[in-house]
């Protein structure tokens, strides 16, 4: 009853092509943003902001980046964590070596550095597809982590490549408290998500999807395949790079190259598989799921199953549930939570009268 478009007539193409064409969606997004910006910093504890919400936002951003590449442009990548590492180390070096570098510019610089590396490792995609491309991006994953560990310059010659992120300061305001860090991360993520949404509903997004769905036809229509694929790699890596910079500056503080290991790349891949391949909201749903699930499982195990399960099982429960869920989603709903949400909305449009 509530979620219904009846009576919302579009009288212009502008109205039909706006970012959220259905009024309830517009209201919903505004409410979510209002809660995220105003209610959350007041209501949630320091622990929640620091340990759950900030990583959730950062992983959402990384998943968004991977989703642009894998979900929209159809190029499978296992190098997301490496691109995050490039972003983190590049931002650190910009702050370190350029006097009076504004932090936001350092983040953008980190993103651009990641984009450049992304383009370089995207070059094989012009020749190879699918699993073979995934293996080529795997090379990026190992090579970049190795390079950042081996070449001392990147970490200012600290032992084993550990860097400690500088303080974040904008116009004299220092982002120290969890609330401030949360709001900064939230603002960056919201802006970048909006830009991504705009890209995927414009001709560049259509070009990505065209290359994903049928590359021969795309070329015949006049899409330059090389340009389109490399742009997807660049934009995707930019998002991952900014996410990596935020990971270092706003979340962990002290990172080493090993922190951006293959495990993290897989985690981000799982986020888009569970959240929804080829969907902006899917990146957020998937990140929320993967960040929250271990915590929820911990609570369940400690509260209710503490005496029932042997400790050897409960410590591995998280892995068991993760594996099971990923298989479940691949088989039952390859388009993930975002698709389930969409189906729910379509049902709601008819509810309570099914015809």
């Amino acid at each position, binding site marked *: 009853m509530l979620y219904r478009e009846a009576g919302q007539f579009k009288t212009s193409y502008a109205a039909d*092509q706006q970012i959220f064409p259905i009024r309830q969606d517009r209201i919903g997004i505004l409410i979510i943003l209002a809660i995220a910006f105003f209610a959350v910093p007041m209501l949630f504890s320091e622990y929640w902001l620091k340990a759950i919400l900030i990583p959730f936002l950062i992983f959402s951003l990384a998943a968004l980046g991977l989703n642009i590449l894998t979900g929209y442009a159809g190029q499978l990548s296992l190098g997301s964590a490496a691109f995050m590492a490039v972003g983190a180390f590049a931002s650190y070096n910009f702050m370190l070596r350029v006097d009076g570098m504004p932090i936001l510019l350092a983040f953008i610089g980190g993103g651009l550095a990641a984009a450049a590396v992304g383009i370089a490792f995207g070059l094989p995609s012009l020749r190879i597809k699918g699993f073979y491309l995934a293996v080529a991006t795997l090379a990026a994953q190992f090579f970049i982590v190795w390079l950042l560990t081996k070449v001392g310059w990147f970490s200012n010659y600290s032992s084993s490549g550990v860097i400690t992120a500088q303080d974040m300061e904008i116009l004299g305001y220092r982002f120290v408290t969890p609330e401030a860090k949360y709001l900064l991360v939230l603002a960056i993520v919201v802006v970048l998500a909006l830009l991504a949404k705009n890209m995927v509903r414009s*001709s560049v997004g259509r070009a990505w*999807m065209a290359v994903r*769905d*049928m590359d*021969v036809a795309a070329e*015949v229509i006049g899409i330059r395949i090389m340009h389109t694929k490399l742009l997807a790699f660049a934009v995707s890596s930019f998002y991952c790079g900014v996410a990596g910079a935020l990971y270092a500056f706003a979340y962990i503080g002290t990172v080493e190259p090993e922190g951006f290991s293959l495990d993290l790349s897989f985690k981000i891949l799982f986020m888009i598989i569970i959240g929804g391949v080829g969907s902006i909201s899917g990146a957020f749903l998937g990140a929320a799921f993967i960040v929250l699930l271990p915590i929820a499982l911990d609570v369940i195990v400690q509260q209710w199953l503490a005496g029932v399960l042997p400790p050897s099982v409960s410590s591995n429960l998280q892995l068991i549930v993760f594996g099971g869920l990923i298989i479940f989603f691949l088989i039952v709903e390859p388009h993930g939570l975002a698709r389930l949400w969409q189906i729910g909305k379509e049902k709601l449009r008819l509810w309570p009268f099914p015809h």
Partner: protein
Amino acid sequence: MSGRKIGDVILDLQNISLRFGGVKALTDISFNVREHEVRAIIGPNGAGKSSMLNVINGVYHPQEGRIVFHGEERRKMEPHKAAKQGIARTFQNIALFKGMSVLDNIMTGRITKMHASFLEQAIHFGRARREELEHRHKVEEVIDFLEIQHIRKTPVGRLPYGLQKRVELARALAAEPTMLLLDEPMAGMNVEEKQDMCRFILDVNDQFGTTIVLIEHDMGVVMDISDRVVVLDYGKKIGDGTPDEVRNNPEVISAYLGVAH
């Protein structure tokens, strides 16, 4: 058929030979296409018809021969350059973008005419926004022309075969091509769908003056709608002329239409 006037030769293929390793797909084929005409390519399976279209818009590069398009001579075409010069095509096996809606598929057809950079599109302001709206107008004209208003927002994967073929034609038309290559536009259709498709092809040719090169197996359709027919068999040209000439060409009869025993 109203004021349509067949003009000069706009596409001239001279001595085209195409090989895949040792397999000769096309051998020394020459024919031309005149402006505004409907040119059919026919021949048995494996005669090289689709290869011929692929040579015209640059998917395949012939080893020998020359292609003259609008007076410009070249050894080979490149697909996206061919698209820019006004050649659009449909495929034998539907090549729509399955994950996208009908509207998005057709909008993609206009991609060579959109110039906003990806940054402008990301901000979605100014030129990018204006272009989206302008091109939407054009796309809606194509949608009206092909009578597919009701499926505008449907993902193409959910459409029946006949409609998918029509959406593919719409995507090609959205580029406002001067030359349209149709690879078996009526394959697998029933009689009504074929009639609709014929009507659309003739309307496109008549109203927009689009030159049409089509491959088709239905002889009735080919003889009815085309101005000139070229016949291929085993990669060689065995006949060329008006439908009547081709129909009475003994070589064509024996190779393709069948010999009376």
